[in-house]
């Protein structure tokens, strides 16, 4: 039976802080030894290399923290998107109602112009009617 241990975000953050402490300690020790002139170039460079290695580890932990949280946020974003879609859908429904009113107004205008042509016999008005018909919604 094997158990897979997972590390929590807080533990990762703590590990990162511990590594920073270690890096500071190494740097501080390196400086002290250098001031005391009790360190050779090889050891000095090794200590610098270890500081840089710790920096790389810290970077890797940063990336791990980022990825872990982003996985959760991605899932959450999909759920929020559903709520956003519903809100937009409701707004679109109200907009549809408003469009119907606009079309009613267009139809009244159309009828009025037809009557006007019938009353006056002004056939030039037909162009206006055709323009109004063009503004009416097309069947989708």
């Amino acid at each position: 039976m094997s158990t897979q241990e997972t590390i929590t975000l807080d533990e990762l953050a703590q590990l990162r802080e511990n590594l920073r402490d270690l890096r500071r300690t190494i740097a501080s020790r390196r400086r002290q030894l250098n001031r005391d002139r009790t360190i050779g170039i090889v050891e000095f460079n090794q200590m610098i290399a270890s500081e840089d290695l710790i920096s790389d580890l810290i970077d890797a932990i940063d990336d791990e923290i980022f990825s872990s949280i982003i996985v959760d946020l991605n899932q959450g974003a999909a759920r929020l998107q559903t709520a956003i879609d519903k809100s937009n859908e409701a707004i679109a429904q109200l907009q549809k109602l408003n469009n119907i009113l606009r079309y009613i107004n267009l139809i009244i205008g159309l009828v009025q112009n037809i009557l006007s042509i019938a009353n006056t016999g002004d056939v030039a008005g037909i162009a206006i009617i055709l323009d109004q018909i063009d503004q009416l919604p097309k069947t989708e």
Partner: protein
Amino acid sequence: MPSLSKLFKLIAFASPIALITIACQEDLTSVEKFGTTSVSIQETSTKMIQDIYDSCTRKEYVQIQYDNARKMAAPRAEITIPSSAAMTNPDNPRDSLPASPNLASLKPRFNLRSSPYEFPPAKMRFKCLPKRNQAQVMQNMNDVLAIYVATLGRLASPNTVTFDQNLKAIGESIKSLNKEVRGSISSPTPEALQTFDNGMNNGINIATSLLNLFANQQRQEKLKPIIICSNDNVTKYIDDLQKLIQLFYITGVLKEEEDVNLQYIEELYSSYLADTSASKPETKTEVYMLLENDYRQRIDGIEARRASAQAYINILEKTSLTHKALAKTFRGDMAPADQKILCQNEGYILGTSLQQSSLDLTPQQVQKAQQILSDYEVSIQPSLKVLKKTFR
């Protein structure tokens, strides 16, 4: 006067309807304001997120200086010149490092805050590319929350869809049509026309009120289940976003920038202490003060950004609490089983055991919601001020 009598009857009928409809139109504009405030916060937080990349380039710049300082402090004398040829500019005194730190050379070199970050060299840009991509992802996640809140605001706003203009136009058209119809039959008296106009105006007013009432009910019917049913998701999402800012930006990126700056300054001070060859007209205290001053200057900016990021976390916390409080208010005494039905049916209650009235907001609920949102507006102001101060 039969037409006048009809008119009186119409007015007598219209008045109570108009009063009822006005009374029933609960004002949801406070939710709209919730949306507009969030948009303003989002604009500012965008700049904060962009700082993830900027902080990386600043850190890389100091890292190069730190590398050079370490090389110069090495036990051997034959130290090579900085390898970062890409970033050094021989014409710029700030970019040329002295063999050892002394008071005269520190002054110009430490004036780093203004220009170098404006043009991160290619090497630093390349190294910070992952951070730029991460900032972009974080920006997208931040935007999702902002869009959610802004959409709630749009849905709640009576200004998003208004019927007044179209109904007024219909009224004018009908009056005009009436004249056309009468013109083709007989000449109407001015009184008859006036009566018709009055009746038409009343009719349009009633229609406007009814349609606005209908729209308001529609808004409430949608808004209520959206806020109730998405509450757990929203609060979890905000919690994750807060974690990301805290663990990735504040204690990650910014902390690293701060650490590299500190290490660099300590390296310089240590080198100064170790340097016995050069004559030292300055005292240790003077050099220490100078370095301390420079460190303070560098850290001030980081601390301001940290404080602003913390302020943004506080705003997110208040937003989460406000959403929770709104959901609780809108839920009212709804039984958990009913809430489950409501959310499973995605807000549609047709064919369920729920009553249509359960979707309506009571005046008390609207009043309470307004109070919650008004408290929210007040409570976020100090944090918003801090956030805007740094990320204008």
